């Protein structure tokens, strides 16, 4: 391979226009997850972020010094202003989901998400961090170019026709890289620990009472099964970080990843984490396959007795 062809392949990967449908679908799922996050937090908005929160703003500055993207540091420290910020955040997340003023709302959602993350870093899980980083790239993505109110308005005004124009996917690629890096970094961190290599790690995970959710069959906790589960998790995380880039293996890896996260969602109580991570899977689906799936659904709906 010549250096020039490598450069051209790099350019094509990041900048060759493609359908914005996957990033638009991601925007809808992403916005819904932000809304869900805020809804789950709603009873504790002031307990975590208020003027008399579990962690005060001065303590947060002491523990995490330096310049931070944190709107809480510049708004008045009153219950009313903190609540107002959250309602603006929620409104903006709803508008982002439906794709109205998409660019502006993706910026607002990112600013607010970064702020709640920086205001209290002691209550975050990996999914929160994933959403924050993905939110940054979403600002630059053509997320409102399809499946949005923005597009509907543009079509009504005659600025766009019925077909969706292909766009540069570089921001989408960055979110894809983020997802792959999450898995690969997790794999690298786990292989440093003896319990994962010995195959005993899942025992500990599944026996932490505070994490338990729905009951697991007893055969699943047999020492041999526990080894198999630990090693399978390692292999999957490696595959989702590396093999996901191999086109022929992609859908197999994604399907196994989906099953892996659904099994974790069943057994462990880590609210929204699995969905936060799964949200980016849509970015790995070929736009042509999404269109095919949509057409298939429409055909099925058309022949369904209730649709006639």
């Amino acid at each position, binding site marked *: 391979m010549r250096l020039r062809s490598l450069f051209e392949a790099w350019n094509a990967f990041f900048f060759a226009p493609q359908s914005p449908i996957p990033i638009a679908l991601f925007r809808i799922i992403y916005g819904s997850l932000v809304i869900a996050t805020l809804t789950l937090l709603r009873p504790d908005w002031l307990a975590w972020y208020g003027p*008399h929160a579990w962690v*005060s703003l001065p*303590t947060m500055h002491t523990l995490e010094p330096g310049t931070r993207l944190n709107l809480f540091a510049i708004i008045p420290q009153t219950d009313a202003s903190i609540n107002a910020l959250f309602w603006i955040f929620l409104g903006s997340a709803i508008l982002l989901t439906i794709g109205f003023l998409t660019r502006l709302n993706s910026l607002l959602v990112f600013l607010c998400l970064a702020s709640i993350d920086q205001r209290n870093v002691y209550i975050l899980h990996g999914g929160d961090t994933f959403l924050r980083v993905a939110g940054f790239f979403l600002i630059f993505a053509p997320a409102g170019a399809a499946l949005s109110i923005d597009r509907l308005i543009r079509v009504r005004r005659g600025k766009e026709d019925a077909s969706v124009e292909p766009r540069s996917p570089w921001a989408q690629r960055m979110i894809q890289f983020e997802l792959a890096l999450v898995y690969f970094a997790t794999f690298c961190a786990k292989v440093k620990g003896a319990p994962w290599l010995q195959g005993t790690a899942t025992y500990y995970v599944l*026996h932490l009472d505070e994490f338990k959710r729905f009951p697991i069959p007893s055969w699943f906790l047999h020492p041999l099964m526990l080894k198999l589960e630990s090693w399978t998790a390692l292999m999957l995380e490696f595959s989702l970080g590396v093999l996901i880039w191999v086109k022929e293996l992609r859908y197999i890896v994604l399907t196994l990843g989906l099953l892996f996260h659904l099994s974790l969602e069943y057994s462990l109580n880590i*609210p929204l984490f699995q969905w936060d991570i799964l949200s980016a899977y849509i970015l790995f689906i070929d736009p042509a396959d999404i269109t095919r799936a949509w057409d298939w659904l429409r055909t099925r709906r058309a022949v369904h007795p209730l649709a006639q």
Partner: protein
Amino acid sequence: MEQLSLTERYFKERYRKYAENLPLDQNDALLPDAARYIARLNSTPSHPARTVMLVQKWSFIVPRADGSYSPEPWGQHILYGYGVKPEDLQ
């Protein structure tokens, strides 16, 4: 967390995460804020809280000879004690 319903657990998971971070040595600075918050939660004008004691409980999971694992009995120690000042309750 174990005493909450499934729905409550889903809403209150952040408290578990916070409690996981609270006893870590590098997070000592979190303890006075936590004590003040608990004091405010448990005070009334006629019965103000005077002292808050944070107690940490743990149970090790240990391997047995047959290859299985079992949790040991619970241990506990006082993580932090705080004398509440009147201004903490404002």
